[in-house]
């Protein structure tokens, strides 16, 4: 397993957010992390990246326990995070955003620009002046520049215009075809389910269901994902 998360509990101060989450991602696998708002999806991702270290449980990436590592060392193991809300470095240009993150590997500036030609067109522009969709492309590009073994997308297309969403999904599909492992959160089931190899559903800070997307019946969808 590339990523292994076993029974983690995480707290925001004294209030508990995760009560036991199990999750794994194999090499080359796309896993969809699902659940309603406030069920602990983003907290799980922050725990995996050690941005919010879990209080108990075990996380290993590529066979190495991450508990004692500072966040930047966890990232260097090969975790590429695309944070929720398209968080680029607003005070840097597109180009600077990408090179600041760069680590050697197959992903280069040229390859990122080929994936998102718009970033190439806007390379000298400040990140804060980009549209939402372009910022998301930049956030994904920045994560790819670190040459990750696992790409984590927290709300891959939330709040974006439908046309841009298509661009982003197309890019994510091409990354999957390249064999990159991906852990993705998104609410657009029609896009997410055909692409995912496996789904994990969280409810109230617990992983309550895990299986192939075909097995995710409409009953289960109503129960865990319906509003």
């Amino acid at each position, binding site marked *: 397993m590339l990523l292994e998360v076993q029974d983690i509990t995480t707290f925001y101060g004294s209030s508990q957010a995760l009560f036991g989450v199990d999750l794994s991602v194999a090499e080359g696998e796309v896993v969809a992390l699902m659940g309603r708002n406030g069920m602990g999806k983003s907290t799980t991702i922050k725990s995996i*990246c050690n*941005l919010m270290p879990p209080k108990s449980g075990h996380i290993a990436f590529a066979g190495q326990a991450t508990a004692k590592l*500072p*966040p*930047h*060392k966890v*990232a*260097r193991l090969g975790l*590429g*995070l695309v*944070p929720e809300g398209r*968080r680029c*470095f*607003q*005070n*840097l*240009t597109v180009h*600077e*955003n990408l*090179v*600041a*993150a*760069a*680590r050697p590997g197959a992903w280069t500036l040229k390859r990122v620009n080929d994936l998102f030609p718009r970033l190439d067109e806007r390379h000298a522009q*400040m990140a804060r002046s980009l549209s939402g969709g372009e910022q998301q492309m930049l956030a994904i590009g*920045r*994560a790819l*520049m*670190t040459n990750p073994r696992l790409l984590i997308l927290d709300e891959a297309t939330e709040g974006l215009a439908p046309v841009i969403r298509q661009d982003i999904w197309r890019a994510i599909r091409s990354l999957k075809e390249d064999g990159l492992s991906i852990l993705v959160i998104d609410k657009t089931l029609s896009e997410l389910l055909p692409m995912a190899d496996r789904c994990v559903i969280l409810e109230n800070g617990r992983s309550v269901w895990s299986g192939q997307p075909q097995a995710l019946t409409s009953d289960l969808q109503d129960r865990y994902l319906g509003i």
Partner: protein
Amino acid sequence: MALSRENIINLVLALLLLVVPVAASQMGQPFTVTLATRIAVLALAATGLNIALGLGGLVSFGHAVFFGIGGYAAGILASHVFSGEPMMFGFEGSNQMPVIWIFAVIACGLAGLAIGAISLRTSGVYFIMITLAFAQMIYYFAISWPAYGGEDGLSILVRNQFPGINTMLPLSFFLLCYGVLIACIGLFALLRGSRFGAALQAARQNEVRVAAVGISPYGIRLAAFVVSAMMTGLAGALYADLNKFVSPSMLSWHMSGELIVLIILGGTGRLFGPVAGAMLYVIFEFALGGLTERWQFFLGLILLGVVLFARGGLIGLLAGKARHD
């Protein structure tokens, strides 16, 4: 690089700082040359601080430590040559600027590493206070160190030498300082445009996001702090040679404040911000200092005006908002 408005202003400032003292020297006004040298050296010190403060957002209120250590490096090494007493391990000191500069830069690098390693574990107002605390420690240490003059300071009887240049001539010494300043401004530009500079500025905006892409915010800030300390230390060595005197006042918190004021006056993080700031400051000190002893009151008013109405400093006022603001 296209000639943007800011680049044109930078060029004008660079030429102005060069042409005025050369012309003054021709007209037999060495005092103007000395003023220009003071501007160049203070601008160099502030360019060093600008790496930490302008790029990294690290408000170091203790950079006088490095300025002073650089100064004392020049004073101490020269004093041993003059007195003929070996310094340590048979080393006899030096009155050669290149040797002194190497000592100053290494000493400041080590001091910056030690002070930065501890201070950078804090942030915000605590960082300001802890850098100030370190500066005060070294300041009081210098005051109570009789071997090198203590509170009275240390005179450099003959200005240190530089191969091929007669440093006793005010214009030659100015040109030397000017050359070092321009080289260091070039280094600043290189750093700012590099991957290191991008990561440093990214860390200023959000350190969690920087960590999430695998960069240690602490490591990158420490590196910036050390380079910053070295550059300010080099300026200190030149300052001591300019005044032919070094005293604990170079280490005092007033000096740290002065360097911050220079940067704010000129424009934080701007390439020629420290030069513009040092020009304003020295000209002000000279023009108003002749009229009243309380010239700093008026400097305070100007600073207030800059902070309230022209946040980008003089460069910001002339060249428009910084790209990185």
